[in-house]
């Protein structure tokens, strides 16, 4: 019974592993000189700003139970880090990977080791950072 409880707890703990990370690349050497944005960053998926200046490409991803809001927040922070105030989401995709996890449990008076296969999901948000001036109009993306 204890072994069952331990396994159940381990399974729940493993599935609860969450983390997000991100990366960004400036579009040009000049765009890398824009200071970090401290104001609000607007996020859009289907509209592009007229006259917006593209600063770079941004990717953020989350693994395990990371939810879309966590990943988009990571994405937003990366856009701000590039000096952008407008985050364009171009693509959201999820991939699944089978991983082998090792766990230990008490067997008699010693500790035994076992392995199990766990499917881990990674959701990735890919897009671009833009800097827009005030009073520019929004247009629909093609």
């Amino acid at each position: 019974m204890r072994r069952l409880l331990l396994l159940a707890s381990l399974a729940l703990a493993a599935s609860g592993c969450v983390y997000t990370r991100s990366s960004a690349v400036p579009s040009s050497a000049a765009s890398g000189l824009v200071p970090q944005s401290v104001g609000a960053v607007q996020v859009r998926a289907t509209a592009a700003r007229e006259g917006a200046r593209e600063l770079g490409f941004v990717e953020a991803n989350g693994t395990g139970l990371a939810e879309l809001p966590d990943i988009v927040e990571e994405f937003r922070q990366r856009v701000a880090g590039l000096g952008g105030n407008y985050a364009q989401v171009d693509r959201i995709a999820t991939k699944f990977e089978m991983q082998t996890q090792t766990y230990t449990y008490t067997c008699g008076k010693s500790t035994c080791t076992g392995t199990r296969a766990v499917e881990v999901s990674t959701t990735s948000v890919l897009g671009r950072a833009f800097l827009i001036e005030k009073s520019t109009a929004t247009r629909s993306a093609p």
Partner: protein
Amino acid sequence: MKRIVLLSVLSLFTVACGTTRTSRVVTGKESAPYSGEVKILMDGTPVPEGMQEVALVQAIGHGFHADLEHVIQGLRAEAATLGCDAVVRVKVDQGSTQASANGVCMRTASR
């Protein structure tokens, strides 16, 4: 101790039966829930003109819900609560024990 065991067993039972988890990131303006049928436009389908972006939506199905039917149903339900009448750029990714659908929740501007 009995309570912990019960909770663990219930959790595993729930996962085994299947669940659909949905989430959203509001990027536009929400409105009253939509009671009609929410249209689904897969990624690559042109977005009709006259629509306003409301949110990014995601549905993840586990266990017996790890299929197209349940994740699309999840997207529709999440979109309806935001007042959307369509989810566009929908992309479905299928794993062996999980499935995911992402899309952009839209509302017809003239509605």
